């Protein structure tokens, strides 16, 4: 049997059902690996005791079921992004302002996971309030990507894992969580998946409930899974998704059997390749990877169609109006009155200003200020309303294109992982990380990143499959075929273990 931390959900499911391994064994193996990986700083809170108790309970359920029905994730140890509120377990959103906050409630998504039998290993580090693409904005410090450049002058610089779900991606890539929950507002699942050689899916807006997930930008936020394989991803999403009457934006649609969509057959599917995603100065290896992906799908019998998404260029600037605008309002509740950090002041206003100055980091402050500005009197029409109009055009681009094609293939990110500190001085160059992912958020569409190759420096690179709204099945079907063709088996050396 392979090391317990090396197997995925699908394999673990088989072993558990055959009784060859227990959830306690699986969970303990991951908790130990997690403890050994502390130098990666992927976790904000580890919950080994709770994990063990949940695993034991799972084993007991399985024993009781005695070959009967168990949950879809029965006994599977997971890491949870610290944006999901977890009952009585510290939930920080990567921010100082949520100091000590223990929600007296459980997010719908995590609740569904526990009901499906899953086990919580702990809460993952992330960019503060999910605002970032490198995990460097966390109050709890940056996460280190398990991957390092090969032949980087031997300096072994630590790289970012991408963000904002950098801790989740790292936990999965570093083999100390079998899978993890994540969220994606502009690319926060797919870009870190691409940077860490994992599979990350942002489903259709409305697929997963947002109830109990700390809000960044409500019209864009979507939860999704980061896993080690496409099949694992389909299994996880199946357990996370579903209608929630507590979320007015949750879609009242049945959840298909995503795993059953992995037929391995893409013959006759039309795959669009958007010309606007060819960027000036895009690294040759990204372009090559993309061509490779096109080749794989062609070989598998899909038809490649050149398409145009003319407003792609405007997606990021529109996003950087809409997301901060919503965030500036969503983050108003962090005021030092009812939970989290309070820094006293001589009067109420001063208390607010002191609390929020101390509680928010630079990037959050920047975005709250931008968001406040674009909504303020005299600027609303020029910025916010304009961005909403452009959002409609972007959405319409996709609707038009999906008249002709079944899905779209693009790179996931414009580069491989970069070094910590490399881009943190220049917000706009950081924002450009999401250039390939953000359109799907604006249009509410599902997208998945799968590891498809290595850069010249030996770092993972991802390809992205986008699909029409609520057609995750086609997305998974294509992703499965690409995964098979790419046969991506590379893994980072576990250098961090020796460091612990």
């Amino acid at each position: 049997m392979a090391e317990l931390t090396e197997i995925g959900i699908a394999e673990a499911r088989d072993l558990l059902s055959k009784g060859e391994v227990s959830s306690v064994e699986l969970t303990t193996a991951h908790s130990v690996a997690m403890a050994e990986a502390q130098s990666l700083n992927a976790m904000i809170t580890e919950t080994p005791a709770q994990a063990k108790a949940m695993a034991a309970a799972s084993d007991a359920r399985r024993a009781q079921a005695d070959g009967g029905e168990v949950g879809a994730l029965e006994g599977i140890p997971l890491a949870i992004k610290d944006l999901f509120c977890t009952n009585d377990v510290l939930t920080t959103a990567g921010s100082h302002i949520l100091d000590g906050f223990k929600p007296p409630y459980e997010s719908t998504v995590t609740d569904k996971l526990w009901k499906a039998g899953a086990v919580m290993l702990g809460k993952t580090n992330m960019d503060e309030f999910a605002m970032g693409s490198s995990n460097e904005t966390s109050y709890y410090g940056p996460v280190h990507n398990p991957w390092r450049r090969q032949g980087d002058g031997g300096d072994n610089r630590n790289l970012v894992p991408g963000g904002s779900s950098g801790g989740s991606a790292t936990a999965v890539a570093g083999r100390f969580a079998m899978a993890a929950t994540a969220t994606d507002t502009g690319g926060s699942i797919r870009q870190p998946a691409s940077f860490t050689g994992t599979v990350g899916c942002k489903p259709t807006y409305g697929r997963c409930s947002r109830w109990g997930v700390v809000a960044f930008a409500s019209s864009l936020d979507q939860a999704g899974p980061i896993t080690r394989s496409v099949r694992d991803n389909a299994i996880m999403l199946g357990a996370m998704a579903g209608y929630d009457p507590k979320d007015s934006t949750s879609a009242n649609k049945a959840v298909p059997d995503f795993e059953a969509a992995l037929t391995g057959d893409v013959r006759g599917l039309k795959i669009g390749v958007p010309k606007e995603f060819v960027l000036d100065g895009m690294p040759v290896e990204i372009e090559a990877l993309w061509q490779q992906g096109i080749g794989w799908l062609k070989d598998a019998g899909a038809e490649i169609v050149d398409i145009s998404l003319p407003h792609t260029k405007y997606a990021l600037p529109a996003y950087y109006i809409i997301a901060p605008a919503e965030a500036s309002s969503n983050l108003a509740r962090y005021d030092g009155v009812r939970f989290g950090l309070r820094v006293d002041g001589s009067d109420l206003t001063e208390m607010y200003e002191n609390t929020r100055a101390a509680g928010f980091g630079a990037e959050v402050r920047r975005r709250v200020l931008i968001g406040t500005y674009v909504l303020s009197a005299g600027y609303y029409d020029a910025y916010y309303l304009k961005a909403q109009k452009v959002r409609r055009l972007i959405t319409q681009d996709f609707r038009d294109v999906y008249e002709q094609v079944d899905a779209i293939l693009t790179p996931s990110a414009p580069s491989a992982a970069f070094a910590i500190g490399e881009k943190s001085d220049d917000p706009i160059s950081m924002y450009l990380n999401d250039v390939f992912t953000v359109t799907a958020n604006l249009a509410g569409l599902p997208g998945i990143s799968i590891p498809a190759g290595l850069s010249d420096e030996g770092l993972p690179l991802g390809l992205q499959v986008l699909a029409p709204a609520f057609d995750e099945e086609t997305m998974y079907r294509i992703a499965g075929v690409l995964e098979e063709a790419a046969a991506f088996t590379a893994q980072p050396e576990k250098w961090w273990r020796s460091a612990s």
Partner: protein
Amino acid sequence: MSVDKATVARIAHLARIGVGEDELEPLAAELSGILNWIEQLNEVDTETVPPMASVHDEALRWRADVINDGGKQADVVANAPDGDNDGDGAFFTVPKVIE
């Protein structure tokens, strides 16, 4: 559009984020940079395009008017950084407000 120090001070106050005098200038430069970049949007003709607030094309769902929440005073105030729990109730507290 470039923002000046006074504008930064005004929006920081609207957002209730304390910003030191020495931070205004660098923030103004940062925000101006971002806003200038955002203004590429002006290239797009949106004359006849209605704004889109949500990707949903459904109407709002309504819930029945039943009492199925509340009665959890302890949970509500459990995380309060400063509170008052005396005989007749549990309150949040803030520095005294004079209207």
